[in-house]
């Protein structure tokens, strides 16, 4: 099975205390959060444990995340009753669901519902958008899908740079400090819900790249040495769980696309606690190998997970 991130872990409590101290503290010289403790806690599985990757295929896209999660023991294996959850889809672009640039709204809503069923106290959904945030939330269909759940525990919010906390990444090779949104740092479970699609510079946008949605500040500078930098940043806030939307994938002109001819329906959703394993597996959707995508290799090298698919237990549900 997978590592089980425990919100009651004493190091996690220390971390939350640090967050609170930061928030209340004098800000003339902002203290830096040292998150390596958290990274170690929620980080890679031990080398001999085989991570489980659940894969579901079918045309009922709302049901796919549930089926994929069943292979991992269900959402209740990850989300504890009374916990706070952040669900981080890709809502980066002012594009419609069928254009494949954002996570599909049915997948997002399904993940949120699973968290609620598992007993989450709050489920917060947000992404830092590239285009106008109102248009992205609306035209991606995600605002309507999340609001249709109509549960007071669910909050669809906008990230705000004023709510970001500078984080020290002591083991980072190229990035040793970055400001991340407080909601993603403070929550008990951070669930990454990327969409699989083409990306010009990094070849593919998958789970590890989706971390850019919790980054404040000038993200453009990530693109110089993007693969190592993504691995560095990912280390600062590893996801509890990654649920990858491949119901339809954008094959060309990513990451925002626009032409329906560039989109291919694959009716697939995968779930895994190992961020590297799921990204490595997803390269196959595009006919690529894990080593073809630089940040997967960088992340594996950084010890964030396993990219050798022979060492991953793939459960086709």
């Amino acid at each position, binding site marked *: 099975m997978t590592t089980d991130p425990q919100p009651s872990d004493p190091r996690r409590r220390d971390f939350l205390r640090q967050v609170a101290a930061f*928030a*209340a*503290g*004098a*800000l003339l010289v902002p203290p830096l959060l040292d998150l390596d403790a958290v990274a170690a806690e929620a980080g890679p599985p031990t080398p001999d444990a085989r991570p489980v990757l659940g894969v579901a295929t079918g045309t009922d896209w709302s049901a796919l995340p549930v089926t994929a999660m069943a292979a991992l023991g269900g959402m209740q294996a990850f989300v504890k009753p009374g916990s706070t959850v952040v669900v981080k889809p890709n809502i980066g672009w*002012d594009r419609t669901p069928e254009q494949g640039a954002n996570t599909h709204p049915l997948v997002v809503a399904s993940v949120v519902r699973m968290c609620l069923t598992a007993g989450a106290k709050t489920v917060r959904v947000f992404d830092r958008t*590239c*285009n*106008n*945030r*109102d*248009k992205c939330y609306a035209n991606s269909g995600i605002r309507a899908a999340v609001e249709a759940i109509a549960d007071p525990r669910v909050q669809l*919010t*906008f990230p*705000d740079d*004023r*709510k970001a906390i500078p984080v020290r990444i002591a083991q980072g090779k190229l990035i040793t400090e970055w400001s991340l949104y407080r909601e993603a740092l403070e929550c008990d479970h951070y669930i990454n819900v990327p969409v699989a699609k083409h*990306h*010009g*510079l990094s070849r593919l946008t998958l789970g590890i790249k989706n971390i850019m949605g919790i980054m404040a500040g*000038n993200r*453009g*500078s990530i*693109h*110089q*040495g*993007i693969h190592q930098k993504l691995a560095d940043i990912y280390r600062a806030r590893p996801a509890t769980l990654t649920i990858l939307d491949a119901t339809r994938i954008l094959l060309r*002109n990513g*990451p*925002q*696309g*626009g*032409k329906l001819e*560039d989109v291919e329906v694959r009716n697939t959703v995968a779930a895994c606690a190992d961020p590297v394993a799921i990204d490595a597996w997803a390269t196959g959707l595009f006919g690529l190998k894990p080593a073809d995508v630089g940040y997967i290799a960088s992340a594996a090298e950084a010890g964030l997970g396993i990219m050798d698919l022979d060492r991953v237990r793939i459960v086709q549900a």
Partner: protein
Amino acid sequence: MSAGHGSRAIWVRRAVQLGCLALLLWLFRHGASAEPGAGAAWWFRFDPLVQLAALLADRSVQLLAWPALFAVALGLFAGRVFCGWICPLGTLLDLWGRLTGWFRHLAWRDRSASDWARLPRFAILAAVLLAALGGLQLVGLVDPFSLLVRALAAGDPPLRAGADAVSTLALGSAIEPASEAAYAAALPWLAARPGWPALWWLSLALLVTVFALELLGRRGWCRWACPLGALYGLLGRWAPLLRLPSRSCAGCGDCRASCDLGAFAADGRLRRSDCTLCLRCVAGCERDRAHVAIRLPQPSSAPPDLERRRVLIAGAVAAGVPLVAAHLPLAPLGRQTPPIDLLRPPGVGDQDEAFLDRCVRCGACLAACPEGALHSDGLSVGLAGLLAPRLSPRRGACDPGCTRCGDLCPTGAIPRLSVAEKTLHPPGLAVIDRQLCIPYLRDESCLVCEEHCPVAEKAIQRAAGPFSQEVPVVAAERCIGCGWCEKVCPLEGAAGIRLVRLDSLPAEQ
């Protein structure tokens, strides 16, 4: 109307004033959201001053201007009733005047009785209209709603930054759990226009000047300077709705003392062009003589309150300066060749001359741009372009799916285009600066511009570069001039890819 009715009517007037102020603010905020619909621009379609200025400069009648006929009719019927009952800036000045009354009483004696004090507003009116005729559109510098809307558009980020600074000092952070609920409630009002607008300080300073005049006299701006008030005064010269009697009564100065605009001359005559029918004199009249009534015009007895000769002299003097200015190629007054990075709102293209005539600098497009892409220009083409909107992609991209500015422009200066038409009329084209662009200069990856190019078949293509990394190349025939590439270029300061004017590019081979 008796005194008792008068005081009740004053409360009605205040309610109407506050309602009109609320309407303008609502229009402003609604226009700033990404949803299509009304905006502050609608207000300007009812503004006879800016519509007249646009007509004079452009020498063409736009159907968009028809609501201004209502305003003209109102002026013909009731003179400056607009100033007393509707004008949102006047309402703000009334509120501000209440707060600062102690200062006015302390520091200044009332100069309202002087006839000469009236002249500046007629001179300003004549100057902007004659300048418009001469091709120099200055009306936005003095039109009250342009002053207000531009300041609202420019004042949002400074206000927010100030609120953040106070909050950071008081709470340790700009947003704290305690203020989270307040923040969430305020969010719809904070949503648009990221970043600080260019020349925000100028727009604020002009409005501050208006409020400073209030310290010199009640409704000081309206008495001395407002060209719109002057226009309504002229329209209402023979208006049938008027306050009677036409003088203050001998032996009683009550109406003179209560008049907000100091409309009574030293000899007791009521200057019609100053009366806003605010009803304060009616409410305060102890003998129930002052009242408002409809009287058909009797030209022979019309009070000679305009001092025709003085007005003509002042107008002639004021007209000379801008007329000369408009026709002399004197920097920075005349029109100069636009710099290659001076981009106009979508659809205007390189048609600067016609645009600068029709545009009244009202600021409605600045307020409506959801991306914060439109900004006030300074003197980059001379005085003729002062405060006209320019597209600054580095601050905000012109989003391909958005046609807000053209939909709302109250004078038609920004053409009304569909989303499809807009992509055929790019404000400029992207050009790569190989002396700045990262992968052209050193062995580092980037391609953020290619990533953000919203054209489905990317207008920025990847190509082999001088080092190991790919470089961006613009496919000019596909570029729609949205400026996303310039906006997102990760360089500090100037971008390595920039939009330039179409007329600055070499003609196609």
